[in-house]
């Protein structure tokens, strides 16, 4: 790792420890992630971490971007989810499929945090079966007219642009839609179990006119190229976000068990507590090693990298759920109290088993991958 990157990751840790972690509970309570902090994350080069330097980015490779995601995700899931949707989902789609004019138009400002973007695929009636989206576009001279609605869109409440996936009945396309365009109505979703400060909203599009030049990628490539690429990068981000929750929960349970006394003894001395810690350590170490391998496959653009990333997302969301559950258990009653971060980690971990492909649909893909990969192998 170069010295520049090492320094960058060190400064990210310092940033996370001083500007994010101490306020994570407050963000949730106020259901707001400060605009000023987003700007500072831009200035610190987190938001364009994977973009080339010519777009004000840091040009991080997959492994170092993974480490950055873990550092931010350990401090706060909202901050990590901004990286996931803005940098990984939208940023990677523009970087891979946008033309030069589009890259110049959006990426530098995205990297700086001058504009915030969100990824709008899911609809009230369409989730896992994403190819059945109903939000429509209709061509009109130099523009398209978008109608329909999207739901659960992370950071859309403060986004300047949405990457909207829409269909004309035959083809699917992805358009960058300025949220100030007449006909865009954004309604915050309240009452969420987690992601409370992530500005998750439902969006209505009523005759929204979008310039044709805002289409990302080739005509008809919205699903095959844009959604696939965005979700592939999103899943990689979630994989590290899951490891982050797992690691943070482990550290919390280690510290708590070494301080809390019952029956006149520190609770870590009880073997059943040790079992939870042992399982967490073993799961985290093996998953971390696997994520390092996946990072390397992605760096090589290896043909298995998409499926291996799916496995990584599936695995880390599982261990994040298990370890945060155990961390709550180790904390006893305090585990239910929002003065202890494990209470939040437990709720945030559950999200990861649903977004960017639910565990069930990823299991379908992983089993198919296994059924092919391990069939009739000559020993």
């Amino acid at each position, binding site marked *: 790792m170069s010295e520049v990157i090492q320094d960058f990751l060190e400064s990210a840790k310092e940033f996370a420890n001083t500007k994010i972690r101490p306020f994570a509970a407050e963000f949730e309570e106020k259901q707001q992630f400060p605009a000023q902090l987003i700007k500072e994350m831009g200035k610190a080069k987190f938001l364009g971490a994977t973009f080339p330097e010519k777009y004000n980015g840091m040009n991080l490779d997959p492994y170092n971007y993974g480490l950055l995601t873990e550092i931010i995700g350990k401090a706060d899931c909202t901050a990590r989810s901004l990286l996931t949707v803005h940098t990984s989902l939208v940023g990677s789609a523009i970087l891979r499929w946008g033309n030069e004019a589009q890259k110049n138009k959006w990426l530098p400002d995205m990297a700086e945090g001058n504009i915030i973007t969100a990824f709008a695929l899911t609809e009230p009636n369409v989730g896992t079966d994403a190819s059945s989206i109903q939000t429509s576009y209709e061509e009109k001279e130099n523009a398209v007219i978008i109608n329909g609605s999207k739901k659960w869109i992370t950071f859309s409440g403060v986004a300047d642009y949405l990457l909207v996936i829409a269909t004309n009945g035959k083809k699917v396309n992805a358009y960058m839609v300025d949220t100030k365009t007449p006909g865009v109505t954004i309604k915050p979703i309240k009452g969420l179990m987690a992601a409370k400060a992530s500005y998750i909203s439902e969006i209505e599009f009523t005759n929204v006119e979008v310039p044709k030049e805002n289409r990302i*990628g*080739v005509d008809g490539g919205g699903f095959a190229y844009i959604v*696939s*690429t965005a979700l592939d990068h999103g899943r990689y981000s979630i994989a590290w976000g899951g490891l982050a929750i797992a690691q943070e929960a482990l550290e919390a349970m280690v510290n708590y068990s070494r301080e809390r006394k019952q029956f006149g003894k520190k609770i870590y001395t009880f073997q059943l507590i040790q079992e939870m810690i042992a399982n967490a350590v073993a799961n985290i170490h093996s998953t971390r090693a696997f994520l390092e391998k996946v990072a390397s496959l992605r760096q*090589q653009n290896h043909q298995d990298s*998409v499926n291996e990333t799916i496995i990584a997302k599936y695995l880390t969301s599982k261990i994040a759920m298990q370890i945060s559950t155990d961390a709550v258990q180790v904390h006893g009653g305090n585990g239910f109290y929002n003065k202890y971060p494990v209470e939040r980690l437990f709720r945030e971990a559950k999200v990861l088993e649903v977004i960017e492909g639910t565990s069930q649909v990823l299991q379908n893909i992983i089993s*198919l991958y296994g059924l092919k990969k391990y069939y009739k192998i000559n020993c």
Partner: protein
Amino acid sequence: MKEKIVKFISDNLINLDDEIEIKDDDNIFEKGFVNSLFSMKLLNYIETEFNMEVDDDDMEISNFSSVNRIEALIKKKTEVLSD
């Protein structure tokens, strides 16, 4: 080249039927041989394996719809490169 393309497609088939045969002109999308991740994976594979970049003009999904079409695209691109 053709064998590599066929191998890549068979590695990504969603149908586990042993008897399945991919003919050079079969439309792999219409026949339901592959899932939604296939186009992106194929493009990444072609660009890495054959060391070429597919431009927007060639990105039409129909260019990737059969073994013959994929081969024609790669040949066109690699000939341009070696000219």
